[in-house]
């Protein structure tokens, strides 16, 4: 049954295509079964889970996307913070966030428990959308519009950190997202999950 006992440095003689021992076959079978579980979880979460990176995706001219963002700001601006417009779009609408070195435009004010379609794109290089402290991360690629249906589940004052290297000022690139609760107020404690 067994091949001549040898190490990995020796040339096996003759036909080495022999059945493995039951214990080895058992492990291969268990490992295979686990791989199928690992795989099945992804399509399953697409159907049953609440967090999927699928989105609505299309190509876009960076300048056209930025123009659309500015139009969006003009439409729904309610104030500003340190020169950055604060925009409060109605629930269910398409909302736009442009990344550029080294800022996120504009500041979004959303309502807790309402769905929005968040469009992400970049005016120049790759950026990383990282919502702090929720820890939700997406890649922002110039020339591509990433439309994600998002529903903020908790109110708070959130930050957007850039987590893709975009140049020497990368570490100064921070944006802001405000989520108000049903009474229209923001909890005093910043962020938190």
């Amino acid at each position, binding site marked *: *049954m*067994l091949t*001549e*006992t040898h*190490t*990995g*440095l020796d*040339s096996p003689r003759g036909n*080495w*295509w*022999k*059945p*493995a*021992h*039951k*214990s*080895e076959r058992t*492990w*291969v079978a268990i*490992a295979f079964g*686990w*791989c*199928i579980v*690992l*795989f099945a*979880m*992804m*399509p399953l*979460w697409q159907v049953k889970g609440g*967090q*999927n*990176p699928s*989105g609505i995706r299309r190509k876009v001219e960076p300048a056209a996307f930025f123009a659309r963002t500015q139009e969006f700001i003009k439409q729904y601006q309610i104030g500003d913070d*340190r020169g950055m417009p604060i925009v409060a779009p109605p629930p269910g609408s398409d909302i736009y966030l442009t990344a550029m070195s080294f800022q996120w435009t504009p500041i979004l004010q959303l309502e807790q428990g309402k769905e929005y379609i968040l469009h*992400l*794109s970049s005016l*120049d*290089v*790759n950026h*990383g959308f990282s*919502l702090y402290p929720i*820890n939700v*991360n*997406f*890649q922002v*690629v*110039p020339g*591509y519009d*990433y439309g994600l*249906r998002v529903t903020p589940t908790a109110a708070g004052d959130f*930050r957007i950190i850039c*987590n*893709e*290297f*975009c*140049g020497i*000022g990368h*570490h*100064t690139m*921070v944006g802001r997202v405000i989520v108000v609760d049903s009474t229209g107020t923001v909890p005093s404690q910043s962020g938190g999950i």
Partner: protein
Amino acid sequence: MNATDFRTCPVTARRIHRPAETLVKANAVVAVVSLLIGAIAAVLLVLTRWQAVHLLPAEWFYRILGVHGMSMLIFFIIFYEMAVLIFASTALINARIAAPKLGWAAFALMLGGATLVEVIMWAGKADVLFTSYVPLKADPLYYLGIILFAVGALLVCGIFFANLVVARREQTYTGSLPLVVYGAVTAAIIAVITLLHGAAIYIPTFLWSLGLMNVDPQVYRMIWWGLGHSSQQINVAAMVAIWYMLGALTIGAVVLNEKISRSAFVLYILFISMASAHHLLVDPGMGSAWKIVNTSYFMYMAVLASMIHGFTVPAGMELGQRLRGVGTGMFGWLRKAPWGDPGFSSLVFSVVVFGFVGGITGVTIGTEQINIIVHNTLRVPGHFHATVVSGTAMAFMGATYYLIPLVFQRKVAFWGLAKIQPYLFAGGMFIFVMSMTFAGTFGVPRRHWDISFSQAPFDVAFNPAVDVLLAFVALGGIIAATGAFIFVAIAVKSVFFGEPIGTLVPGVAVVGLPQGITNPPVHAADVDRRNEELHAPGQGWLGPAPGTMVLVFVFLAAFIVYFFVNWKVLSFVWKIG
């Protein structure tokens, strides 16, 4: 070719081709120099990310981060792999190098390309980090340097295959290729696939940097990672081959079943280049079907391969020990193992950390949806330092303790330090990797100079635990770098100023030589009968390696827990679709 071109190895009795050996030496020496540059960079980086010290200015932090990535992940690893390929295709099968002059030309191209890249990076003309995502732009010479390096590496792969053909024609070995060489063949095939991806992306990017064409940023990311991630699979294949080699050299590890081990290597070749998707899971360019099929290597077939090697390597070690009558009971084979042999301790740390930390975190964070809470946080470098540093680099270091006497025919210098070096390196890396991974779960970004955000328009207040974790990242990093510096010192002293190994008497220990060299783990003449006994049905379903069987179930349990905890954490974040 003449007879004086050959010598006979006093330990393994193999026929060694001197011109091949010289080329192995040259590649190994450059690899160690690259490791030194990368390790110095590593110390500067961890001392910057430790916010209380914050050593480098922003510009130099990003620059040195690029230097660290290229020096370690490309130059150290690939030069070492070139040495492994030439060694495996000549020394291990008594063969000669088919084209020594071409080998030197390839070496010159690689060295020239690497030097060009280093010069451009240090001069501040390529502050684009390791990934150089278009449209961030570097000096055209940077891309040219990488192209020259890659052409050289591709030539070495060609020489590797030519060596095998010549060896087969000259009948330097009988039967099939040894499993270790088979693993090297796997690494070489993956290297060719990888380097073709490299050509497909760096040549257009070079032309783009000259203003001659356009490169789409998303297409760049996809093809670049066809290079970037697949090259990690060269490392995996080469590392697993070295696991089998070190197991054989240190404790006489046997191959349980050639069919299973070789099929697992074939799975790597078939599915590994799909792993580009691991980096694109939260990218706008691809749909979910594409992401799911690719990120899972078509239903995790490459993960299956690693889980198979993760069983067959330790099981072969256990069986090797049992066949020689070393140790009794479930884990006696491990207790009685040569823990003072740096080749052996490196092997064990490499297998354990690669599997338990690198493997489990890698598969989990490479899941389409879980990647949402992981992408570009410190969990990513936390993962790959467990695979490519604690796994691959540790295995390469362990192999070096055997290559110094076998190839360079020198005693290992600073032997006392050599014995503890794997403990220092693996221990430091473990602290580093775990701290980085936990910091990443708080959303701390990777590749970031200042997470206190002192110059940002809006404040970001991280949990105070993050400061402690980043201090531990620095601590672990410095311990590991110390281990790397000791390794470099040992390698340089042994190779250039080392004592010749002299005449060996089997069974007589010599300071500066691993026990597998002075006291080779030879199997008794009746090994086949003993093997038959250990495989007898009376041994139960745990089989000939019961200790390993228990260990792999512990591994599986850890894997299952970690995987589902991550799904649970994901379910708490905002609804996204």
